[in-house]
């Protein structure tokens, strides 16, 4: 199991992936709103998504787990 974490604090605007999707490192996985800007957050590893830990409207801190890979 590998975790994908947010590298910045912000509010989740939208999810660009869902459980079951395969992601590769560097791919945009969620869109955050931080300091009045839309900021895409990228996966830090390759794998298949086992669980999405956040939903739109949630606030995440830097380092919070957003996705769990199988």
């Amino acid at each position, binding site marked *: 199991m590998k975790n994908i974490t947010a590298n*910045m604090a*912000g509010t989740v605007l939208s999810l660009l992936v869902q459980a079951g999707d395969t992601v590769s490192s560097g791919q945009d996985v969620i869109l955050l*709103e931080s300091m*009045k*800007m839309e900021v895409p957050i990228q996966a830090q590893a390759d794998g298949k998504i086992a669980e999405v830990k956040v939903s739109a409207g949630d606030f995440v801190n830097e380092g919070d787990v957003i996705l769990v890979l199988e």
Partner: protein
Amino acid sequence: MQKVLIANRGEIARRIIRTCRKQGVAAVAVYSDADKEMPFVREADEALHIGPPPVAQSYLNIDAMIKAAQTAGADAIHPGYGLLSENAVFAERCTAAGLTFIGPPAGVIASMGDKVTARRIMREAGVPVVPGFEGQLETAEEAVAKAQGLGYPLMLKASAGGGGIGMQVVRDDEELRRAFQSAKGRAKAYFGNDTMFLEKYVENPRHIEVQIAADQHGNCLHLLERECSIQRRHQKVVEESPSPFLDQETREKICRAAVEAARAVAYTGVGTVEFIMDEQKKFYFLEMNTRLQVEHPVTEEMTGLDLVAIQLDIARGLPIPLKQEDVKALRHAIELRVYAEDPQTFMPSPGRIVRYQPPVMPHVRIDDGVEAGIQVSPFYDPMIAKVIVSGTTRGEAVARAAEALAAYQIDGIKTNLPFLQEVLADADFQAGDYTTQFIERKNSKRSVGQ
């Protein structure tokens, strides 16, 4: 006026508190949960909690703001910039609650907030506007038909737009067709209004604005210009005055046009008329900001005036204690905006400031909203400070600004301080030769060099 509630936060709240104190007026701050440790809360005479961090539930909550003013027994509200400052409904609600809104009447805010209406008023008053089409554009084909009469390149804009959102340059029919639906969709999503219009696109433009002040006795003055062409994502980064691009004749013309623009809407308060200027120094009305600007300290350091004091006087019904001939550029002033962002990518960088040491030097003014230990919140604007530097010449001001930036220490978050230093060191900037494309061009040069 004895007690003013400041419906804002950060550096501008502190700035307003300073003038209130000088005038013996009590200042009331409001703060969200994210801001309770911020210096402006501590420095106000009183501070009231207004809600959770998101602005919709705190600094944009009109009911909560009016209630806070009533609870504190304030008799006036200063809206600062951004947030509720250009919200006509808020201005109206203040007045209805018996509170003095420190700004123009609600009707003026509403007419200048709608770009199509503002353009029409200015055109009728003889203020030059960019040639364009102001009617409703419903479909891409209608837009293409109108474009033929105007000629490309054109700028497609949203009437309710701001901050560059819903704005796009189009160079032919095909680009206009492609851009139309998406721009309209974005305008609807962001502003709840998808009225679009077309303007001739001004190539290599400069953004030059004029500060004005008008009282309730019919006095309307300009306080000279500010050159604001150094921008990224349509957000200003460096401003200065006098503009290195203007000759005296053009300066007089543009300042006179700004006074005419303010008179055309029976403006009261301080405000700014923004113009776009082409390479031949022809200028056109862009929009009017019916509030104090972020960059107002440039005018203050250049002229020696206190713009917040002028705002308070006007709101009290006093005449402006100045004549046009008293307004002089005594010094050259430059403002550099410090953003909590990556200096390479301009991506935001919220987080805790672990060390904070602003420069303390003569002729250097720091308007900041933060200190060591503060959490720079992802809920608000990334601008954390402004460095305002003046000199007897532009060269002296630029050299001092470079020293000030070199001495500024902020650790724990990324800031654009290194980027600002690059701007000051740039040969074109030093020559005063730049347009609104300066940053974009500089960055493309930089990525080619890598």
